[in-house]
């Protein structure tokens, strides 16, 4: 069933291509669009079914499917859903139809390929969230890039090529290192267990030397924090967002950025707990810088899309901060904030898209006084803005509050700085809201802007309803998350001393004494890094010798 959900969009994508027929057939556009939309809606329904059948008391993977794939390397098609991935799957299902609808009228060039890429992207994203095999995960992870690259590059705005290339190079740079680490980890498993494995559940228990662990951690984490994006790796994001078509922005902000934070929670932290605890102060510091920095830079943006993009940097800083705290409220809050950000920032991009469709500009200064012209649109704008600035009773508050509660237990000072984001988010969002919607209509072109169309109602109503549902009844989301989150936290916390006592296989205990174990002093200097890297690779070589040559 899970595979069906994952690959249903891909099937729909092919159907959309076929429905479009050969060449450019504008008369078939409605058919293509309807096929695509229907597919995405059925997928969403299926993800809801998944939620319905999910056992909220269990911390384990459910709906598991496992087949051999590449037997030589023991690579498997191994998928499943637990409380951590469940709602990201639902979120993907929720946002894809909205994304398709949001570009319904602005995309006319190559509708069938456009629909194809969106749906193919959905399959790849779902695959990322359900993979338990690391190789499979990596395949989906990189598969995500391709459709997004074309979505930005073909259907984007003026500087789309620059943005698309910047996007793909930035993220590729990170993911290549991750690939190295994945393979390295699989071989480390081979050393200790006499068999290679890409199975995440096996790899959780692989003993690693501290250097290896640090390097693997950094390789994974770099890939993830570029995706998040964490300050200072964020500069691809504003460009990608500004140039992407609305649908691309919705998916990019709504789902793709969460792949990074999901990766931290699923892989970086539990696979490498000691390195994680050593480096999490650095990550948290970067996250807090990102919260404040993103908000300040968002405040002065003249372009609405850029403003929302920088606000994402700020909001995702909260997510990373909560993860670094590694306690129940922090991690649950982070997970919740991932969903919130998908709903509210996805919603904001839809709103900006509506303005951009009408006026073909996204500059704040071009607008003003819209409340008198399009009151329903402005009401929707306001509700989504409130969700974004974390008004209690809406979704954003639940996430931020839990993160702050969790982070405060861990580091009150960083949390106090992070909490200034509460003030700043109100400043940049309300300032934009005021300049766009209040005052007199100054630009004649705005005098005749139409209010929400039925299609736009279909975008706004689910988004706002979800924002309020998540704000009023967070329990229905938090409860199924709790067991899996608890399990991850236990794994991160518990394996720290265990691994120390375990020692490092293949290395005589005497050699380890000069290496004090969990390195509490982040970040290592550059020279130290180089030394460590050399050591790690040398060690990897040494470990390999008894295993591969028995």
């Amino acid at each position, binding site marked *: 069933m899970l595979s069906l959900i994952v690959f249903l969009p891909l099937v729909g994508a092919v159907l959309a291509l076929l429905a479009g027929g050969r060449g450019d057939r504008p008369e078939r556009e409605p058919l293509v669009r309807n096929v695509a939309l229907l597919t995405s809606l059925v997928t969403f329904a299926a993800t809801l079914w998944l939620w319905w059948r999910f056992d909220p008391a269990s911390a384990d993977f459910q709906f598991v499917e496992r087949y051999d794939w590449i037997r030589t390397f023991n690579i498997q098609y191994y998928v499943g859903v637990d409380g951590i991935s469940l709602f990201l799957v639902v979120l993907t299902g929720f946002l894809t139809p909205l994304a398709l609808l949001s570009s319904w009228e602005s995309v006319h060039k190559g509708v069938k390929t456009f629909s194809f890429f969106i749906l193919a992207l959905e399959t790849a994203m779902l695959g990322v969230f359900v993979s338990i095999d690391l190789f499979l995960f990596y395949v989906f992870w990189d598969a995500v890039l391709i459709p997004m690259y074309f979505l930005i590059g073909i259907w984007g705005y003026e500087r789309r090529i620059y943005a698309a290339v910047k996007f793909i190079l930035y993220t590729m740079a990170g993911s290549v290192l991750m690939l190295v680490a994945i393979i390295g980890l699989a071989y480390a498993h081979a050393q200790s267990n006499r068999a290679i494995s890409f199975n995440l559940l096996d790899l959780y228990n692989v003993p690693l030397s501290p250097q290896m662990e640090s390097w693997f951690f950094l390789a994974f984490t770099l890939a993830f924090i570029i995706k998040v994006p964490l300050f200072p790796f964020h500069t691809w994001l504003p460009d990608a967002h500004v140039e992407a078509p609305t649908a691309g922005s919705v998916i990019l902000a709504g789902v793709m950025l969460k792949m990074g934070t999901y990766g931290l929670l699923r892989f970086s932290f539990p696979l490498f707990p000691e390195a994680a605890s050593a480096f999490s102060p650095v990550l948290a510091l970067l996250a807090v810088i990102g919260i404040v920095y993103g908000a300040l830079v968002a405040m002065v943006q003249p372009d609405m899309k850029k403003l929302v993009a920088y606000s994402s940097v700020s909001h995702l800083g909260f997510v990373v901060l909560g993860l670094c705290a590694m306690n129940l409220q922090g991690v649950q809050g982070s997970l919740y904030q991932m969903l919130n950000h998908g709903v509210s920032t996805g919603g904001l991009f839809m709103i900006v898209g509506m303005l951009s469709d009408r006026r073909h500009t996204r500059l704040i200064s071009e607008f003003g006084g819209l409340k008198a012209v399009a009151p329903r649109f402005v009401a929707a704008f306001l509700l989504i803005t409130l969700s974004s600035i974390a008004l209690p009773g809406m979704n954003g508050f639940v996430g931020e509050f839990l993160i*702050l509660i969790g982070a405060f237990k861990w580091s009150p000072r960083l949390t106090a700085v992070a909490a200034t984001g509460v003030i700043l988010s109100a400043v940049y969002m309300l300032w934009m809201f005021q300049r766009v919607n209040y005052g007199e209509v100054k630009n004649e072109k705005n005098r005749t802007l139409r209010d929400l169309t039925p299609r736009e109602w279909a975008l706004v109503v689910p988004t706002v309803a979800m924002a309020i549902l998540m704000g009023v009844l967070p*329990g229905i989301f938090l409860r199924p998350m709790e067991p899996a989150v608890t399990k991850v936290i236990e794994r991160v916390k518990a394996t720290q001393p265990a691994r120390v006592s375990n020692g490092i296989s293949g290395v005589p205990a005497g050699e380890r004494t000069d290496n004090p174990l969990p390195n509490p002093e982040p970040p290592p200097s550059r020279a130290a890094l180089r030394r460590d890297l050399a050591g790690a690779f040398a060690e990897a070589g040494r470990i390999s010798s008894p295993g591969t040559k028995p």
Partner: protein
Amino acid sequence: MLLLIPLLPLVGFLVNASLGRRLPKSISGGVACAAMVASFIVSVVAALDLQAMHVESPALAQTVFTWLPSGDLQVPFALRLDNLSTLMILVVTGIGALIHIYSVGYMHEEPDSEYARYFSYLNLFAAFMLVLVLGASFPVMFIGWEGVGLCSYLLIGFYFKKQSASDAGKKAFVVNRVGDFGFILGMLLIFATFGTLDFQGVAAAAASRAPETAGMGVMTIATLLLFLGATGKSAQIPLHVWLPDAMEGPTPVSALIHAATMVTAGVYMIGRNAVLFSHAPLTLELIAAIGVATALMAGTIGLVQTDIKRVLAYSTVSQLGYMFLAMGVGAYAAGIFHLYTHAFFKALLFLGSGAVIHALAGEQDLRHMGGLKKHLPITYWTFLIGALAIAGVPLLSGFFSKDEILYRAFVGTEHAHGSAVLWAIASVTALLTAIYMFRLVFLTFHGERRAAHSAPGTLHPGTLHPGTLHPGTLHPGTPGTHGTLHDAPPSMAIPLIVLAIGSAVAGFVGVPHALGGSNSIERFLEPSFEVHATAESIPAGDAQAPAQAEGEHGEDVGTERMLMAISTGVAFAGIGIAAFFWLRNPERAAAVARQFSGPYRFLLNKYYFDELYDTLVVQPIKQVSTGALWKGVDAGLIDGGVNGVGAVVSGASAVLRRVQTGSVRTYAASLFLGAVAILGWYLWT
């Protein structure tokens, strides 16, 4: 049943928000008023139920559902009614209902859709305010706390086409968020320390600790953070700057939100957590100092303002300062008592000023009023009662509550010391209050009408904003707004009369022992400020406190009577001074202003707080964000670095151009292969 109290206005909001544009005014206004009146009735029933319990500390509680479940943090959406919140819900729903009814008349010139929008916001405000008051824990209170801030934002910016109105709304929200930052951190610290966010749980946990008499303990820091939240919501120094600007909203809004209810939320929050604050004497001292300083500062500014609503706004800030002074000396009951009487007379004064503004087609400048007494008799007499009450004239409501505060400021309580200095500053403020209030009365209603001859269109341009949605100015031709002046129509007059009666008699619930009364309000409220022994709670540490308070009564009757006599003299002196300058010798006031032009300008410009914040905070942040962060770090440093690497790579690859296909897919593939190759080399050698 408790849930019904905020739910009814919420339903009113939903009706008006969804269908309002299509409804005629009679229905949209009627729904909103009915919701409030119904909520008031339910509140009264709940209050009677509570009093029928006949226990020492009666309380009703209702847990609706578990709102935030996350491990050891379990926040139920729970409401709780005790004596303190009873008083508050009666004020909110009672005065709220009156102001809703008043609004029916005041806003009738708005188009249907705006009318419905107005009432939907007003209902939503009431719902949030009631959640704030009834919430049994910090997070539930915070729902209301931020919710009323939102409604305040929306209602201040109600005339959204006007730049100053939307600016004021945004300023209110942002300044409040600065306070909320403190509130949130306070919550975090409390949860980290006590492991609960439930008010009763926190109070019990705090009571089990010794008061932090020396140094900055956890409770001191937590209460300081919460107090920051209170200064934002209740417009105290340094976050008072938003309230005067909030007068951009429709006048009934100023009466309800920015005088009677929302702005008192900070005072209420301290009262709600009295046990915690009592354990942080350092915080209490600061609260008293900030309170009295705010009271004095706002009083001096109120002396020179020329906009009728701004005078009242500064008066509100000043009176709120009084309430904080009471809280700061540990006289929680006195602070809440003043909150309650202030709700009557300040709502009355605002609504009265609204009736004046309404009659004068939007005119708000005192310099263009005068002589309205004979044209607006109902407004005049009710306004006069309000002014006498706030000035502290004996036997009116303000007299009792203010005297209780002055007395407590002088002698202190078991929680904090009083001092002659606090008392003296508060008394000077009382004098100022009497002066600026009667300046307002005389300039508005007495003498000759100074702009009677000019047509509405030629009124002072600075105060009458052409083209705005101010009632009356929207339809300049509407009969009844000029020509002959009309007093308030019934829907406005009835609330004025009811509030005037309230302002006169509301104080009799708190007649002090010194005047032979029983100070029943204090006895009524006192249980809410104490911890009540439940099975597992703390050994009695506060047992000696009430006894000590009893002991003070006997010897202090004399002091209290003396202080009372002084403040009565002060009230009449203030009225006399006002009469001298603005009734008998109008030119003398101007002469004094000329003579002391420096201080006068300082006051007129509100101590230059706005300019100070703009120079020190707003502009630097904007400039740093644009210049240093965005253009510097982001575009220059990071992207410069990234593009620089790109340039180096592309330079080097000019040599290798032949293998470059220009296809990103090929690059990706070669990156992938390269990575595998490198790793493979390390692993197999």
